[in-house]
């Protein structure tokens, strides 16, 4: 059957297939050595610009996303100046140019532009890339014990779709008629007939969607395929689970928005009327389009993405908080398995609740009952996760480190954000609260003191891993307390405003409405001052961050590879793991679950890393009373 020919190599006679195997192996080793050699002289551009190393891409994502976060925050400061003191001239407003803020007074059109860009930048350019692109990229391969992401080139492509997408969107600030101004939701028909900035927004979105699509495929394959030996699914750190479910949301929820963006682009560029109904009159002139389209189609497609997107914002944050809490309470997470099941269920349900954003579109009773029911159901897994995190604190000997302060603040802040969402999920109460500041307060509590605080917790927690230096603790606490007080000063009054019936997206914050004037004038200046305070309290963080980053670059490393005495595999890699060398000197073998703090097995410390080998105790004569845990 088989042809077996013998070949002589050296003084050995081998069958052809064995000889070939040996030769190929030798060739492979030689090539690997050659590559190793070549890598040392790798051009700068391949190393730091078009890098394929997940750690460097994570850093690229992190720095870019933090810059966008600051930029989006500055847009908000300009808006808050206008809301706090409507119609007043501010010299800082002049940066927007004479056509947007003549004499330092913000124009209504420019206010709309700032609002639309603030929302878009914060959601799509800042928080998702920070949570998934930065933390996910840097940590997931480390935590599962993988040498890199499954598709390193795809990973690079993902970043290089994200950055141009963001720049395209920002470049619309240079247009004479300005950026997109139809809110971050871009509802047609207004967005269909808006100025050119909207086209930039759509093209930018298509890039961003492509980027997160490439990223999510990569994450799922990495987590399924590249787990280290012994790392079964129930031994994954909760952070990895959160990223896993998040990736599925990105993978399956984003494409409908991509389709919607293509349709809106067709409406704007090829003059179709997917979202334009017949008989539309703009400024007194009938629109000359075919008509027959349906604006609600956009809302359906948009919210099909945008509701899962909410969980894309919150799940990685929960993952980070879980890691920080387990580490700083020095005990295992309470109910790891229920948290994992809740996360999976949450991810699934997040696809079936989207139309609760659309109760006011004249929705019929059948559909609205369906979506109210699913919305109430989805609150259950969120509560399970939050309760498990609260219960994890019980009986722990808590270390109040800076990351832990942020993680602890996350719990009640996310609680407020989540609970205020319930009245919005029921049509009867939503009819009153829809599109008021109550909604703004609700989702900002989830995203700002919720997710962003969790991101800060993550930055303070993993900074030593990335750079080999801890951030200064005193300035970290100043940053924390200042931010905590100010951020509540901004968002809590929003609930009061919303209950008083003040609508969102008002240029003057409601001053021209009789029912709103009193509440608005009492709250808005205070909120705006809180916002400025929040800006000031970010300065210690920025200085702390860059000072320590530069010190680390100069080689001044102050901590070892596991300064927090943590158990997960990321801390088993060396501190500031070198680029393009794989992550671990020896591939780790995982022997236990992720949170073995205060384990009775650990003899000389209060924690047992996932890959640590426990010396077998000397055999005892009496049989053990309890079975030995493997």
């Amino acid at each position, binding site marked *: 059957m088989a042809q077996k020919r013998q070949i002589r190599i050296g003084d050995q006679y081998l069958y052809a297939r064995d000889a070939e195997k040996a030769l190929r192996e030798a060739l492979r080793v030689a090539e*690997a050595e050659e*590559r*190793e050699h070549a*890598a040392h002289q*790798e051009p700068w551009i391949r190393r730091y610009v078009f890098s*394929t*190393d997940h750690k460097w891409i994570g850093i690229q994502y992190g720095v870019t996303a933090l810059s966008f976060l600051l930029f989006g925050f500055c847009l908000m400061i300009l808006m808050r100046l206008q809301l706090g003191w409507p119609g007043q001239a501010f010299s800082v407003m002049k940066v927007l140019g004479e056509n947007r803020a003549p004499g330092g007074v913000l124009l209504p059109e420019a206010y709309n532009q700032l609002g639309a860009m603030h929302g878009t930048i914060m959601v799509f350019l800042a928080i998702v890339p920070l949570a998934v692109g930065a933390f996910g990229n840097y940590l997931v391969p480390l935590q599962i014990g*993988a*040498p*890199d992401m*499954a*598709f*390193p*080139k*795809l990973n690079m492509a993902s970043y290089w779709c994200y950055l141009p997408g963001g720049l395209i969107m920002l470049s619309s600030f240079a247009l004479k008629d300005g950026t997109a101004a139809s809110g971050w939701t871009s509802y047609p028909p207004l967005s269909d007939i808006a100025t050119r900035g909207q086209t930039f927004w759509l093209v930018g979105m298509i890039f961003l969607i492509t980027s997160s*699509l490439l990223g*999510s*495929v*990569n994450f*799922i*394959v990495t987590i*399924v*395929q*590249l787990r280290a030996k012994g790392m079964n699914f129930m031994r994954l750190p909760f952070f990895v689970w959160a990223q896993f479910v998040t990736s599925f949301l990105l*993978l*399956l*929820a*984003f*494409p*409908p928005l*991509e*389709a*919607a963006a*293509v*349709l809106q682009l*067709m409406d704007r560029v*090829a*003059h*179709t*009327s*997917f979202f334009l109904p017949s008989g539309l009159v703009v400024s007194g002139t009938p629109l000359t*389009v*075919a008509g*027959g*389209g*349906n604006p609600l*189609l956009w809302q*359906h*497609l948009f919210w*099909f993405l945008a509701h899962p997107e909410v969980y894309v914002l919150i799940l990685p944050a929960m993952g980070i908080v879980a890691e920080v809490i387990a580490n700083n309470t020095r005990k295992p997470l309470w109910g790891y398995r229920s948290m994992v099941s809740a996360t999976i269920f949450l991810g699934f349900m997040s696809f079936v609740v989207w139309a609760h954003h659309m109760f006011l579109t004249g929705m019929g009773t059948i559909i609205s009952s369906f979506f109210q029911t699913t919305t109430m159901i989805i609150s259950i897994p969120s509560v399970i996760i939050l309760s498990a995190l609260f219960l994890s604190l019980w009986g722990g000997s808590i270390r109040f480190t800076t990351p832990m302060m942020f993680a602890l603040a996350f719990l009640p802040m996310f609680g407020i954000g989540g609970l205020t969402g319930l009245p919005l999920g029921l049509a009867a109460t939503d009819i009153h609260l829809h599109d008021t500041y109550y909604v703004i307060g609700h989702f900002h509590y989830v995203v700002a003191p919720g997710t962003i605080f969790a991101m800060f917790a993550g930055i303070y927690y993993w900074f030593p891993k990335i750079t080999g230096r801890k951030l200064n603790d005193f300035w970290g606490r100043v940053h924390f307390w200042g931010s905590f007080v100010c951020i509540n000063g901004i968002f809590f009054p929003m609930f009061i405003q919303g209950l008083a019936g003040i609508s969102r997206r008002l240029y003057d914050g409601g001053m021209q409405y009789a029912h709103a004037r009193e509440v608005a004038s009492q709250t808005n200046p205070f909120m705006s001052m809180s916002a400025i305070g929040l800006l000031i309290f970010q300065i210690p963080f920025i200085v702390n961050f860059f000072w320590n980053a530069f010190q680390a670059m100069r080689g001044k490393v102050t901590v070892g590879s596991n300064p927090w005495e943590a158990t997960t595999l990321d801390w088993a890699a060396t501190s500031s793991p070198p680029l*393009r*060398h*794989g992550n671990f000197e020896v591939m780790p073998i995982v022997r236990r679950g992720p949170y073995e703090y205060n384990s009775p097995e650990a003899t000389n410390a209060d924690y047992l890393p996932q890959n640590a080998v426990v010396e077998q105790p000397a055999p005892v004569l009496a049989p053990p009373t309890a079975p030995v845990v493997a």
Partner: protein
Amino acid sequence: MDHAAGHVEIPYTVSPRPDTGLYNGKLGIWLFLASEVMLFGALFSSLILIRTGSPSWPHGWEELHVVPATINTFVLIMSSVTVVLAWANLRLGNFKLGRIFIGVTLLCGLVFMGIKAYEYSLSFAHGHYPSTSDFFAIYFTMTGLHGLHVLGGMIVFAYFLGPGSKMWHTDRARFTNRIEIVGLYWHFVDLVWIFLFPTLYLL
């Protein structure tokens, strides 16, 4: 194995992971196709929604050109067969025949695009543009996006016919896997057309 990743070796690039039975690329392409299902799903959803909401809808076969579209359907099916035959021949170790079949697939893609361009030109000649009506808006958008997918597939085939084929001499199994993966994508593009053809032209 991944030359691009410097000397970091990514496991399971070629051989399957024992517990999942898959190599990375195969899982990756199926996840990508899952997202494509959602992309075209959203467009089909739009089609249904706009069609049910409109008082009248033209007959596809009166507005469009069924004969070239039917030929195109055959061309695409043919290309699906040639790509599996290419993969099967590579698995048999028959590089020459495998390459020929990849070439034929690329040619089929070219013919498809040519006929599509002819159809578009006929429509334009009748004064039918995307802005003409919702029917044509949907038609041009969906077939246009599908055409872009065909074009993308053709670029990949051209790469594997040209510079990409070098890999056969260094890593056969991986090259064969690559053809399997691009084949899966190509079949999906065929699958989309199988549903587009009756919904746009015949209903």
